């Protein structure tokens, strides 16, 4: 099977999924037109929309299945979809959150969520209507994103974030360390809740609690991961109600992760994620406890590593993805 992924690389997922598929004998290629300081380059061809259009005639002939990401496809205005459909090519759209998070619906679920980076509701609805006219299947990473797209598609699959966990050597927090290092790495501070996190950090410092804090921003992904290795606690996102790639990378490194996972979502994960749960109202207390308890940090780090090995490693995720492809192509 030959599979195309494109055209938006989010959190290195296209590259990771393609690497995983190739290990299973699938000829998978990813094309990325969304370039950021994160510098994703593994297993991905970096390109632009114009070159993608130039490649399209070759791709149409070559690939058996098209796996799109972030509500985007290969040609402007979804002009490729009727062509692909007419050619009988199976397609799936992988939604990631900000591309489909309806503002009002998101706020119904949690008052903390920031949706300023999502398009207006009408635009999201328009895009989903066009996409689902041609594409029957969608993928989302968890049940936080699921309700936004479920009404539009014939079937929506859940596929956890993918990471080559076994290639990451864990470095668990030192249970003896008295002055821990806390790291927060917001790609989008307003979405992640950085303001609330840093307000809490300031209060703790004011109380005389001893710890170090480092904020990583606008840093190449490889360098960022090198820095995460030094952390004793990683603070992920505390507004949207689920966890993201920073949490997965951090758990793979054996770090305790602080984040906000909505109560109603917890039972919907295959296993309750060992995120140290918090929100903007409780972040200060949660951090204070972790700073004071080196053994708790280490325990959470060990739990996190076990969790991502089981649920986010390329092996289990690619097995699920192949099952999705088989179901899509009627070979399931």
């Amino acid at each position, binding site marked *: 099977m030959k599979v195309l992924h494109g055209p938006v690389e989010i959190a290195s997922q296209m590259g990771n999924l393609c690497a995983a598929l190739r290990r299973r004998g699938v000829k998978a290629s990813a094309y990325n037109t969304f370039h950021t300081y994160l510098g994703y380059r593994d297993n991905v061809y970096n*390109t632009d929309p*114009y070159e993608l259009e*130039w490649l399209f*005639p*070759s*791709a149409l002939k*070559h*690939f058996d299945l098209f796996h799109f990401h972030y509500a985007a496809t290969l040609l402007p205005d979804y002009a490729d979809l009727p062509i692909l459909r007419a050619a009988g090519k199976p397609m799936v759209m992988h939604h990631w959150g900000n591309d489909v998070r309806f503002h009002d619906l998101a706020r119904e679920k949690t008052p903390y969520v920031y949706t300023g980076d999502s398009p207006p509701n009408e635009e999201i609805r328009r895009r989903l209507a066009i996409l689902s006219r041609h594409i029957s299947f969608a993928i989302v990473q968890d049940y936080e994103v699921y309700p936004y797209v479920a009404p539009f598609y014939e079937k929506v699959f859940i596929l956890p974030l993918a990471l080559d966990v076994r290639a990451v050597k864990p470095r668990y927090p030192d249970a003896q360390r008295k002055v821990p290092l806390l790291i927060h790495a917001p790609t989008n501070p307003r979405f992640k809740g950085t303001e609330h996190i840093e307000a809490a950090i300031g209060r703790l410092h004011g109380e005389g609690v001893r710890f170090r804090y480092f904020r990583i921003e606008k840093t190449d992904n490889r360098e960022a991961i090198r820095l995460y290795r030094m952390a004793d606690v990683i603070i992920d996102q505390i507004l949207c109600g689920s966890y993201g790639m920073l949490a997965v990378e951090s758990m793979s490194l054996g770090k305790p992760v602080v984040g906000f996972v909505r109560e109603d979502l917890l039972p919907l994960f295959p296993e309750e994620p060992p995120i140290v749960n918090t929100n903007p109202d409780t972040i200060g207390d949660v951090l204070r406890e972790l700073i004071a308890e080196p053994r708790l940090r280490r325990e959470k780090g060990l739990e996190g590593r076990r969790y991502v090995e089981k649920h986010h490693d390329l092996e289990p995720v690619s097995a699920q993805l192949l099952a999705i492809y088989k179901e899509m192509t009627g070979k399931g």
Partner: protein
Amino acid sequence: MTLRHLLSVPCGAREPYTLRRLIPAVVCPAGEPASGREPSGRRERPDPAPPFAPVFGGLLFEAERDDRGGLISPRFLGMAGPASREGWERALGRLFHPARNIGAALAASRLLPEGASLDIWLALPSPPRGQEREFGRVAGRRLRFALRQEDRVTALLWWADGAAARWERLAAAAPGHRCVFRGFVFMRPYLDANDIHVAKRIAEELGSRGMGLLWCSNCGTTPAHGTDARFDGLFLRPTRFGIDSRDGDGSGFPDAADFSVRHGPGVVVWVPDGSPERLRRWLRMGKAHFAGRPHLFELGDWRETGLIDPASPAYHELRAYLSGIGPPAVPPGCAPQGEADEAGCGRSAGNTGQTGREER
């Protein structure tokens, strides 16, 4: 360098172009009028009239994938196996076959009338930046593109030198041909910082060897409008026009035309599926916007679609178009952002000194 109207010849690994297939791209019977008027600036034909008249001014040969599926053309990025020295070498062997592809072009050029010539251009292969697998040994070194960017330059220059050497041998063995080997074309439209470095190095090196380097870019692509790589010519592909399921009105074409007027590149007539109707739309738009510019016709595998076949009406419409617009009136822009001097780039690329007088 003055560019002429070119036709892309996509060379897959299997079916080479034969003399019979290439002849309609090079000449047509002179007695068949393609249009009512002669292109301006053309000299009168000698009397008696030669039996054949030129069609395209040049051919651009592009190897696609090697015979084991390895990558050659960037058109197949992500759709081929790893690039390899052996694969690229075998592709050269097929391109310069004595009786096929360029060998067939040499033979076809013998039919050109006196004073006319046929330019030969070669598409450069693509050494993928991220390729982990070793390319092969060149000049005593094992090339690893993912580890050393300079290895990409080494591979390209090795291939270009190999092509030039094969050209010399093949041309010498084909007396009476009227082909001129002009140089190479950088086909990948998207260039990141590393690619620009590679393109600059290649342009410098090929220039010092007396060979030209063109770039086929998409209008709007990164960074088509800003690279300082010194190409000898630029062909713009108004990509958006190629997809008629979206709007069908060629919305990208005026943008490309506007850019062309300001900066002077040629235009790629892009009909990848070989649809005669789409070609007709291009020709209508081209006449309005690009009449004075050099054209590169990318018509997919035109053997399958019959676009370059005297039995096809589209072929005669295309000939009429070429006759109607005449040869390019201006040299192509070689330095985007208006850096081109009045004489084009002033870099001579031909290695034989032959220049066709009836240029198309």
